[in-house]
């Protein structure tokens, strides 16, 4: 296990380097002069030069990269072009709302998705299966922003039970987390069902039935436990999807999170913030993949012995 862990950790290094080059290259790929864009059309040549130094766009490319990496590793992400606040500060304030929203969405999506998936798998071919899978394919095809609007319309505007948006107590979490989690719940339901059906065809399940193991035990112990192995990976990967989805859902619900900050900075061309956000999102994603792999190796010994 330790060897696997070390090998996997070493394996993330090239990905991290690629991510850093991508994020570094991002501002430099912009058509035109980013320093001129940030400084504004009325800026003098001196202003533009000052902004260029502030953005780290002066000097040879390699030197820029080394400087950029040094600053990033020390946590110096520059200042927002819009608010003039340190980027780290801006992002820090937005981090927890997004994290909690993601966790809340994943919690219900996982519970609901597994439940529907298992019921569909056990009742394969019957109405429970059909109903579950109709829900799942609809969930995958449903635009999250429209779902959000429909929920706001019903529960906030018409019934007045829940707030239309913003960040606060648990009532603020209900609608955004349902909106964000719906797609993931649908994916997990489909995936759990197919994993379940696949394992049901295994010899050991048939053997268990043949030797007279009670059906409930066959489902829970022999089938479900093995079916859950690929579901672990899928769940982890869906966390990344939630990070992406949060960008849209936060816009719908005026959620003060990272996603809305990203959209605002893209519209405002606030490059230091965009750069830092893309870096942060990528790091989170690399970290999630790492955790998923380790967890996978933990539940499935075959992987770590390879």
């Amino acid at each position, binding site marked *: 296990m330790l060897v696997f862990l070390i090998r996997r950790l070493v394996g993330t290094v090239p990905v991290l380097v*690629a991510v850093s080059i991508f994020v570094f290259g991002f501002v430099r790929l912009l058509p035109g002069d980013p320093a001129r864009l940030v400084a504004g059309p009325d800026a003098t040549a001196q202003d533009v030069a000052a902004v260029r130094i502030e953005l780290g766009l002066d000097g040879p490319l390699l030197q820029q990269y080394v400087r950029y990496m040094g600053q990033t590793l020390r946590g110096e992400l520059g200042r927002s072009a819009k608010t003039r606040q340190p980027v780290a500060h801006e992002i820090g304030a937005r981090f927890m709302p997004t994290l909690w929203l993601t966790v809340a969405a994943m919690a219900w999506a996982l519970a609901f998705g597994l439940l529907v998936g298992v019921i569909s798998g056990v009742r394969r071919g019957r109405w429970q299966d059909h109903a579950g899978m109709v829900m799942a394919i609809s969930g995958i095809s449903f*635009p999250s*922003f*429209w779902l959000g609007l*429909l929920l706001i319309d019903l529960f906030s*505007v018409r019934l007045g039970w829940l707030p239309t948006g913003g960040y606060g107590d648990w009532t603020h979490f209900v609608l955004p987390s349902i909106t964000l989690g719906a797609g993931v719940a649908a994916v997990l339901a489909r995936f759990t069902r197919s994993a379940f059906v696949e394992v049901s065809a295994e010899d050991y399940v048939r053997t268990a039935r043949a030797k007279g193991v009670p059906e409930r035990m066959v489902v829970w112990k022999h089938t479900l436990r093995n079916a859950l192995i690929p579901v672990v990976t899928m769940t982890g990967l869906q966390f990344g999807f939630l990070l992406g989805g949060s*960008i*849209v859902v936060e816009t719908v619900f005026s959620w003060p999170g990272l996603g809305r900050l990203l*959209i605002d900075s*893209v519209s405002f061309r606030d490059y230091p913030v965009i750069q830092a956000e893309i870096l942060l999102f990528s790091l989170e994603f690399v970290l999630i993949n790492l955790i998923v792999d380790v967890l996978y190796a933990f539940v499935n010994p075959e992987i770590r012995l390879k």
Partner: protein
Amino acid sequence: MSAAAKAAGVQSPLSEFWRRFRRKRIPLVAGGAILLIILAAVFAPWIAPFDPAAPDYENVLAGPSLLHLAGTDVFGRDIFSRIIWGGRVSLSVGFVSVFLGGFAGVALGLVSGFFGGWVDTAAMRFCDVLLAFPGILLAIAVVAVLGPGISNVIYAIAVFSMPVFARLVRGSTLGLKQTVYVQASRSIGVRRFPLVMRHILPGTLPGVIVYLSLRVGTSILTAAALSFIGLGAQPPSAEWGAMLADGRSYLGVADHLTLFPGIAIFVTVLAFNLLGDGLRDALDQKLRT
């Protein structure tokens, strides 16, 4: 295979596919729906009852009626007509982006799987990195570089569709390389390019076709989301996601503003997903999930 089919000899793959595909009703209906949506988009100027951009200040925010089937928006523009015209935008974004990404991905996958070695390693690591980003984040990054607008959204979606196809095609290429007929063609000295194009590429196509359908649905959804958050189609363009964004402020006052564009997106994406599922069942049993 039934006894009758056997007696008739070997069937062409296409008729075999059609025989399996038409057994299920849902993918057929989905395919029909897609055909209708495509036809409506192509013939929009003749089908749409109103000019999608013409304001009518006498008829602002009117609910659905016989004259305006889906009501009118803030400027009195006919929403039904706008949805039909909007189909042009959504469908072209979906098809163009996925075909661009699919084309690049298939090429990369073929090269990667056929040649192996460092080419393969480099290509797959590149795909890993691309896949390491959530699609919409990658799309936003591309839009941030190129600027908002529908054509940039197409490039953005093409970029994140590419690795999906590359991986898929690489996988089947590796398998096909070992088949007897490929080995045999090699042994009689068929050159590499014809070998790949004639003997390997066709074998990878079933999976590619399935993913094309599934990815078109995803792409339409992503494009609508990007337009909704203001990074895609710009007003006054009649794009479904942008229409939803316009209708946001009238929730509870004029729900038809968000209802009908929402239905349009949902039905279109659902149809592509159902078709993709049906194609998968009919084309390739191994791809079944």
